[in-house]
């Protein structure tokens, strides 16, 4: 039978009368947990922001037609040359392959698929931007702008003007921020685009697009699908890419494989497109945890030392307790509860400090050209991290407290009372 009331009473008295070591040990845990919470909130916040940045710009499945030479050259069709060795020089891809052949039926098919949140057609056109005497190479993407708004974060990236303005204008363009700067153009100005064939087309700037990624902003602009089809002089079914958003991102790979087979096109899923990106996230997480665990181990050693010292000082008390009827287990629990109380208080304080520091970081201004939608440092407040932090605090103190407490429980009172 364990009499917790007395055990806790004694533990409390020890802690209160040894204020200095109690506070030192508690602060050790507090700093460990506080640092963990701050670090993990900030690092995962940053990770998530970077993930979002890329994920929102990347469709879950991207369908396109790759320009490549036909795998079957005409000569292979001649049967009686099967055994022969043939050489074809200067193979060139067939013309007009950029277009997805049956784009409209595919779109229709996808929109009826229950796993698909949305599928949007795009027309990527290589063009030149002309403004006065300047001529800049780039591309113009024809989109169904309202569908893009629904399925991606493009609205956040339109730093001037609105997507609606593009929808309502027949020859509007959302000019890339880098382009706008280079050509010193702004909303309501006009810009001329010229196709590879040399057809020049005037467009009206209805907004500025800034993704935060310079390579994109320096070359890419958006216009309505119809507008771009008109610029290229192509029919209404001329579509070069289809972007798909799914309800479940983890179905992307399977979906991509299926579409490739079914429609004989190229389909690439998000994981394939961003493999290297995930590695970066994982390494950042690893660093966060390595640093936090190190801090907690240091705090754990502090507790271990302080408890060891305390037990050394309390040898006589332990002997008396045992002589008057407290068992070794009682004594062990007395010191364990001290460790746990330190872990509990230190942990709770650490969570508070971590939360306050996170708030501070959250409020600190973080403005960068590259990320127009971000004004302060990103911080992730997840209850899970706080629970892990608290669990860690208890775990590290229990581990640190266990050995000294067991030692205390095993002290032989006769030896102490004899004074040897």
């Amino acid at each position, binding site marked *: *039978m364990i*009499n917790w*009331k*007395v055990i806790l*009473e*004694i533990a409390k*008295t*020890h802690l209160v*009368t040894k204020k200095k070591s109690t506070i030192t040990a508690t602060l050790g845990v507090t700093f460990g947990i506080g640092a963990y919470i701050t670090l993990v909130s900030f690092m995962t916040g940053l990770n998530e922001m970077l993930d979002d940045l890329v994920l929102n710009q990347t469709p879950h499945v991207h369908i396109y037609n790759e320009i490549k030479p036909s795998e079957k050259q005409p000569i292979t069709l001649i049967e009686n040359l099967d055994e022969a060795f043939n050489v074809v020089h200067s193979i060139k891809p067939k013309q007009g392959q950029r277009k997805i052949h049956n784009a409209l039926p595919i779109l229709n098919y996808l929109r009826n698929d229950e796993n698909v949140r949305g599928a949007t057609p795009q027309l990527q056109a290589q063009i030149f931007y002309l403004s006065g005497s300047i001529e800049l190479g780039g591309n113009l993407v024809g989109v169904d702008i309202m569908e893009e708004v629904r399925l991606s974060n493009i609205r956040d990236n339109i730093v001037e003007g609105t997507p609606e303005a593009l929808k309502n204008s027949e020859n509007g363009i959302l000019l890339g921020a880098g382009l706008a700067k280079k050509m010193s153009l702004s909303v309501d100005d006009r810009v001329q685009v010229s196709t590879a064939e040399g057809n020049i087309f005037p467009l009206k700037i209805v907004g500025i697009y800034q993704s935060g990624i310079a390579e994109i902003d320096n070359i890419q602009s958006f216009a309505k699908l119809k507008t771009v089809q008109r610029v290229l002089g192509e029919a209404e079914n001329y579509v070069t890419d289809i972007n798909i958003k799914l309800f479940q991102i983890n179905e992307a790979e399977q979906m991509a494989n299926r579409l490739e087979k079914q429609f004989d096109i190229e389909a690439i899923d998000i994981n394939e497109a961003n493999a290297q990106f995930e590695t970066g996230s994982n390494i950042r997480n690893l660093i966060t945890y390595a640093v936090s665990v190190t801090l907690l181990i240091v705090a754990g050693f502090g507790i271990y030392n302080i408890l060891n010292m305390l037990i050394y000082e309390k040898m*006589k*008390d332990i*002997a*008396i*307790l*045992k*002589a*008057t*009827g*407290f*068992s*070794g*287990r*009682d004594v062990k629990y007395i010191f364990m509860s001290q460790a746990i109380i330190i872990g509990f208080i230190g942990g709770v304080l650490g969570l508070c400090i971590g939360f306050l520091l996170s708030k501070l970081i959250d409020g600190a201004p973080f403005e960068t050209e590259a990320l127009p939608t971000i004004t302060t440092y990103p911080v992730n407040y997840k209850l899970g991290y706080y629970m892990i932090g608290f669990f860690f605090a208890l775990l590290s103190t229990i581990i640190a407290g266990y050995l000294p407490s067991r030692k205390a429980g095993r002290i032989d*009172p*006769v030896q102490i*009372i*004899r004074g040897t």
Partner: protein
Amino acid sequence: MGLILEAKNINKHFYKPKDFQVLKDISFGIEAGEFVSIMGKSGSGKSTLLYILSTMDTDYSGSLFLNGGLVTGKEHQELSRIRNKSIGFVFQFHYLLSEFSVLENVMLPAKKLAEKSYDEIEHDALEKLNMLHIEHLATKKASRISGGEKQRVAIARALINNPTILMGDEPTGNLDSFNAENVFQIFKQLKEEQALSLLVVTHDGDFAKRTDRIIQMEDGRIVHQ
């Protein structure tokens, strides 16, 4: 009449630094309400015997009975409970928990026993302090009282669970003659009024002479009782 405490053929060796038999075939008994003293030269094994009788030392051969039941070979947990409930122990050096008040020191073994409410325990503790004429010290820190006072607090603590036997290892060894006499009177009173059995190691011949029986030890053997 039943024996409160009985030792049968107790032998004990110390193996460090070399084999040394400190207790040799110790057998004796104490009856209820008997006041027994142990005398003997320094090094004759008196303290060693007392630690065995108090169940703190389990490293011996032979058997020990308390209230008719065999104690030898019991689990540590069980022995702690026996010490808590049935044995009061007073050390030569008054060992009190210096961070606790006098009253708390006296109350602790009873709180551990947990047979009474804290209010009842406090009432009992004050009663014991009263009996020893130190109730005015109740709220003082244990580290802030004199040696004689500490010894009496230790006696109060040993009595708090109304044990069947009180053991003392030179409980008056550190006291002046006035306080030593005081402690002797308290012991005698306990024996007479509450039929408490007492076993006290002492070097004080006058003290021993006034007890019911003297056990004389020499080189780990009882030579006379």
